[in-house]
């Protein structure tokens, strides 16, 4: 699926304010977003993800660096000349217009003939399944419906790139789940490049083709959800997405992107994956996801051993909190089975076996 670059950021820096109050919202960010891709900028608030989106939309201008849209530098274009549209976090629907007028606004501003605008509005209303609400005022519809109108309004002019600024954060859990599927469907049907901003890791993992994890104005890692989850390259990424166990170790040997790591605790050697751009060093940190390890009864050959401090039941699975010999905690998540329930109780001595190739070495 090699496709053209829709948006390219090259060394983009954005500084707000000046002098002592200056804030570097983005610090030399470079990223390529491919055509027809569902690309997510994921990070905590203040990481610069919305700033990057606003730079692409044209509401702010980069202090340094350039942004290319299909190879063309968009710096000289004001927002109303950029073939990108935005779905705003608060939707920003025009309260003095009806649902239909809101959706048709962009096309009207592009000077399309009235009949074409009307036809497109009808088409968009059908796409978001809101045909019957065309003549309502935007204040007369629910939050979920407003969300759909905002989407339809941004999609109506058929932008090359659709920017979505945390569009689901105001919705309740059930609605959010529905909209996630809906958004994915819309992206598939329209074939438009989506750039989606969120702080919700679950949202990012379910919807995206690729994710860029951001922190403090930097992009730390870009990759497919599975890649980001299974092979986090940095401590921040591992921590921000999902639960993680950190283990200290020494690099015993490498071959390609594989490494042999001798764990400090217990001295067992495990196979681990090296991150891209890894600079060889002796002491390394290894991460293991809780579901990538098994808990075994004491005495079995295990990678790690410790005392079972807590057994927490979660319905679908159980979390075992094991206090390792070096004092650190290691969590194992195991799916519950009716035919073969676990037989561990709090206070037991237990062993941990790490799955093959489950361990990932961090860059830092």
């Amino acid at each position: 699926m090699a496709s053209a670059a829709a948006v390219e950021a090259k060394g983009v820096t954005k500084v707000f304010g000046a002098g002592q109050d200056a804030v570097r919202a983005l610090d030399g960010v470079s990223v390529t977003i491919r055509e027809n891709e569902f690309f997510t900028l994921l990070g905590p608030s203040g990481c610069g993800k919305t700033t990057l989106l606003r730079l692409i939309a044209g509401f702010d201008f980069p202090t340094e660096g350039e942004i290319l849209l299909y190879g063309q530098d968009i710096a000289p274009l004001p927002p109303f000349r950029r073939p990108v549209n935005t779905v705003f976090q608060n939707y920003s629907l025009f309260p003095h217009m009806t649902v239909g007028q809101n959706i048709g606004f962009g096309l009207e501003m592009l000077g399309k003939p009235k009949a074409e605008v009307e036809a497109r509005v009808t088409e968009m209303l059908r796409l978001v399944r809101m045909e019957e609400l065309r003549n309502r005022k935007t204040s007369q519809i629910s939050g979920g419906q407003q969300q759909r109108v905002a989407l339809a309004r941004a999609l109506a002019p058929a932008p090359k790139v659709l920017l979505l600024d945390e569009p689901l954060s105001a919705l309740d859990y059930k609605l959010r789940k529905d909209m996630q599927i809906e958004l994915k469907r819309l992206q598939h049907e329209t074939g438009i490049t989506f750039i989606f901003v969120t702080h919700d890791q679950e949202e990012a993992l379910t919807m995206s083709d690729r994710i860029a994890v951001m922190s403090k104005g930097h992009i730390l890692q870009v990759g497919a959800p599975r890649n980001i989850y299974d092979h986090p390259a940095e401590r921040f990424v591992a921590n921000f997405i999902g639960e993680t166990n950190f283990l200290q170790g020494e690099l015993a040997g490498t071959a390609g992107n594989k490494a042999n790591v001798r764990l400090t605790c217990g001295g067992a050697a495990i196979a681990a994956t090296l991150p891209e751009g890894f600079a060889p060093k002796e002491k390394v940190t290894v991460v293991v996801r809780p579901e990538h390890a098994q808990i075994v009864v004491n005495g079995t050959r295990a990678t790690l051993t410790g005392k079972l401090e807590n057994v927490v039941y979660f319905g679908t699975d159980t979390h075992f909190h094991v206090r390792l010999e070096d004092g650190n905690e290691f969590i194992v998540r195991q799916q519950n089975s009716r035919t073969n329930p676990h037989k561990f109780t709090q206070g037991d001595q237990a062993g941990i076996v790490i799955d093959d190739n489950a361990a990932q070495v961090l860059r830092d």
Partner: protein
Amino acid sequence: MASASDIMTTAGGTVASAKEVAEAAQRKDTRNRWYLMLPALVIIMVAAIGPLFIMAVYSVLAKGDYGGVTSALSTDAWFSVVLERDIFDDTLSFADAHMTVFWRSVRLAGITTIFTLIFGFPTAYFITTRPERQRDIWLFLVTIPFWTNLLIRTFAIQELIRRDGVINNVLTYLGIIDTPIQMLNTDFAIGLGMVYVYLPLMVLPIYASMEKLDFRMVEAGYDLYAGRLAVLRRIIIPLVKPGIIAGSILVFIPAIGAYVTPALLGGGKKMMVSNLISLQFGQGRNWPLGAALSITLMAIVMIALMIYVRNASRTSSRAH
């Protein structure tokens, strides 16, 4: 004072249902709010509706010889608002002198409203887009004209624009002009004075509306290919329309009855409706005519405002 026991007894000794208690509380609440409104209500009754009623009555009475009214009913006053009887041959003609005066006042008020809007809207926009801490200072500056008496301010403008006033002197000194420009006692002077006096009344309501405007709407407009002018016309103006309407009303109504400014800056050469009315109660000694003219003025204002508000609200809800 409202208390729980009051409410319980209204329910007639039996155990009051939650709904009854709530309704009783609601009634009590409504009643209390009426008390809060009472002082304003009394003032409006005494100072506005009372005199209005008296005016209406006076306008249909015969005039007294030395001012005031007699108890005899007469339609003379209303008659002479629109018609004139020739003093020699008693022929009737349209009272175009009165109409001219009315038209002049309406026109002046209209022009004042338009110019205060043209100057006031960008001012309000400027203030709204300042950082929050600065806005109070700008608003304070806008209200400064209210601090001094109108008469004094008007004399000050005279001082600026008269033949040997500050502006002419400076321009002559700089060699830009060699004969002084006639500014005082012109329509320009009246316009200048009126716009200056009423500008704050336009700026403040528009600011109040604009401050509530979510500027992300403006970004949404830009995002949807609306240029600066289209954003102004299709998004900002419709959303601050309540402020524009309120400001226009606040300027138009007092401007139509303007008295001091046209007299002092226009040289009193052209009679305004307020001069005409006060004349009837003074030297003219024709109170019924004064009363009839006042009511006519009020009717004109009300009709003008009704047309304005209706048009304004129609354009804002224009169908797609």
